[in-house]
């Protein structure tokens, strides 16, 4: 259930936030800040880029104390707090920013994101509307307000917003997908089909678009098309489930002491997902257990090059460097590990 929560939360956030990059553009306000504040900002940015949000928030908080009305410092602090799942503190900081910068857009977008995570869609809509009043072509606000209007059953409003959105960003698959759902609810089946197909064209593995195309065809009595989409949907769903199960198999073998078997599973998974730092970390752990330190080291380093937010990898890397007589590198890795305070909600498996 936990990983599902994370996945769902990520889904919701990406669905809501995908019109604009989820991460804020990390500004560099250091030049205009007092040196001490600039130093804290730089440290916070370093933490932020490594996914160490609580540490980032601590650094930005120190910078804020020195530069309380710097808008970018405030944005960075609030966004770090949001990523660290400290909703109330994030909300407070976004509100504080609005207090000294009442026309700003970014704190409104931030407040909307907090509201969506808290399930208060009405509040979120209000913030997005305020953004659109000030910036009618803001893609984040357009898409998210359209998504929220759809969620609320206001399909005509959703359609208008999302049509504006796809006109401005024609390759935005989530917007085409949500517009497709909206048109389907409005009974415009042909247009809905076109939008869902457009989403699939942009993202062939878009499982949700395939699922809704299947539903659309079932309702329309187009059995052959429904069967085709069902096959694709089922195939994608099975693949994702198989990957999850395979990871479970690898973990089971690992826990049972069958490190060679676990390694085989991770190798297979990496063929399917060659950029998965998590699977590479799994390989590294197997090597570690098999006393193949050099290969373990290579895997850990590779895993971190793919995904720098793997505290387990830093943890084991530190031990490996120590064993291999590289104390300085061991110390750095240990510090990185200790810094990674964002605890993942979910299973680590090890």
């Amino acid at each position, binding site marked *: 259930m936990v*990983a*599902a929560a*994370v996945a769902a939360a990520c889904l919701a956030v990406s669905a809501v936030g995908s019109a604009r990059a989820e991460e804020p553009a990390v500004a560099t306000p250091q030049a205009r800040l007092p040196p001490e504040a600039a130093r804290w900002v730089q440290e916070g940015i370093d933490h932020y880029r490594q996914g160490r949000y609580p540490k980032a928030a601590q650094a930005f908080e120190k910078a804020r104390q020195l530069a309380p009305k710097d808008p970018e410092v405030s944005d960075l602090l609030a966004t770090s707090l949001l990523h660290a799942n400290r909703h109330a503190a994030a909300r407070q900081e976004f509100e504080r920013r609005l207090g000294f910068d009442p026309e700003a857009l970014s704190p409104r977008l931030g407040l909307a994101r907090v509201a969506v995570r808290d399930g208060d869609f009405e509040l979120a809509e209000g913030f997005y509307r305020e953004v659109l009043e000030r910036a009618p072509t803001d893609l984040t606000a357009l898409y998210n307000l359209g998504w929220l209007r759809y969620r609320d059953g206001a399909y005509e409003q959703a359609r208008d917003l999302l049509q504006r959105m796809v006109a401005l960003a024609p390759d935005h698959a989530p917007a085409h997908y949500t517009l497709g759902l909206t048109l389907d609810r409005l009974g415009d089946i042909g247009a809905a089909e076109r939008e869902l197909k457009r989403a699939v064209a942009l993202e062939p593995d878009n499982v949700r678009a395939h699922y809704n195309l299947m539903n659309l065809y079932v309702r329309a009595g187009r059995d052959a098309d429904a069967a085709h989409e069902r096959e694709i949907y089922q195939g994608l769903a099975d693949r994702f489930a198989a990957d999850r199960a395979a990871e479970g198999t690898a973990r089971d073998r690992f826990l049972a002491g069958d490190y060679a078997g676990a390694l085989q599973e991770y190798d297979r998974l990496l063929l399917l997902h060659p950029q998965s730092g998590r699977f590479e970390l799994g390989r590294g752990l197997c090597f570690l257990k098999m006393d193949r330190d050099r290969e373990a080291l290579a895997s850990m380093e590779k895993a971190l090059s793919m995904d720098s937010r793997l505290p387990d990898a830093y943890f084991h890397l530190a031990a490996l460097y120590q064993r291999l007589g590289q104390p300085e590198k061991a110390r750095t890795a240990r510090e990185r590990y200790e810094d990674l305070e964002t605890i993942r909600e979910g*299973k680590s498996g090890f």
Partner: protein
Amino acid sequence: MAILALICGAPPCAAAADPATFVEVGEAAGIQFVHIGGHTAEKYMIETLGSGVCFLDYDGDGLQDLYFVQSGTVPGRQGPKAGDALYRNIGGGRFADVTAAAGIAEFGYSMGCAAGDIEGDGDVDIYVTNFGPDVLFRNNGDGTFTDVTQAAGTSNPLWSSSAAFADYDADGDLDLYVANYVDFAMDNNKMCGDLPRRIRTYCHPDAYEGVPDALYRNQGDGTFRDVAAEAGLTRRYGKGLGVVWSDLDLDGDLDLYIANDSVPNALYRNEGNGKLLDVTLASNTCCSEDGRPQAGMGVDAGDIDGDGRFDLIVTNLSGEPNELYRNLGGMRFEIISFPSGFAAVSLPFVGFGANIFEFDNDGDQDIMVVNGHIIDNIALLNDASTYEQRAFLFENLGGGRVREVGRERGAYFSGVFVGRGLALADLDLDGDLDAAINNHDQRARLLRNDGGNARHWLRLQLRGHGAGNRDAIGGLAAVTAGGRRQVDEVRSGTSYGSENERALHFGLGDAGSAEQIEIRWPSGARTRVEGAAADQILVIFEP
């Protein structure tokens, strides 16, 4: 046709001045039950789920008694010996613990319960789902029970969660569906969490394989046989947590819906020949609107939008919306979770027990949901989440929309608990529905509905003929009052590991009588009653 006006309730107030409010009266009513989860540092997965609660009239006195399911100390560990508890409703809003006197000795690590008269002998028996073999208690008819599990063949050694009775094959006796969860065992407890940081948490269900559910067919001689495979339940194994039988296509037999955790939910259409056909994908009830499986926990069926068809609700994990599947007919559903107002508020919550019911007698179906996270140390992992969470009460606004009004309807809904089992009954026979809640590792709660009876109501107790299915599970009633037609059916199971009373409760609003009552019995027979005064319990016998 025989009809008995059994009890006339208190007359409703002249005007509905005060809204229905739920008042917590558990301790005052004599309910001392405290659930024990048996949490350990090893984080055994069984410690997460918690237990259900069942309303049943075990002594046939017309008052709803309570069966609380206990988890207790995890197997193989030393700890307090805590078992399930049976409370007899002694009237006047009071309950007495009769567990020992009734011969109930259930000390397994238990999850849920279901109640049904398996022999058709006129008294209700109890099935308890466990981590480990389940238990079937036969009601001896004298206030005591006998464990007949082995003789009945229903021991089901798998980790089971919810169960529900129904005469799925229409042979006149009650069969039993048992939802089983995963293949966790005490000796295959996996390490999950962030171990380098020395934070151990409970494993995700992905860490274990799903196990097959059981469909026990009543062979009419006091024994059951698992016919899941031959009935057609051959889809990949789910990780079942909630189950409901309901005639979703209104063709006269009971269809089956199961809420599964982290894998697709399952909907089986009853083909009427002893076979159940998997129609999950085509029905649009497997998943979220995006086609993603969710962490289904509690489930119920009921007519939310007043169109005469039974819709489905499923509670899910935080970050996932609770789902409301609107029944379009023909086994097709439309997901209206967000536009209905049911979903958004649920996003930060982990939903378990859930029931569709009428709480304010205004003539439409409302919803109660109890919430509580599954990970007791969730605050270490995510400070936007809490283990204890408030419960929800949704008021039906009409037009397929609901609004969460809990905090306006009782202090309980402002408090935070680890909600699990939820069951409903009119325990004080005053014409409105009360609630019992089994909270994980906490004291059980009894919510008395005060003021729900400010509007008119009508309660129907269906009595099937013959030796089996005396409670007419699967029977469908349509009540027309004030020009509005409402439907409901007699169900077993629902919610999470829990069971509601059998009587069907209809709110009539301002209507002082029902123009018409139509009954469709499980046998297919029909009964029509013209003109029935409001504010009474009608016992209707199958012709």
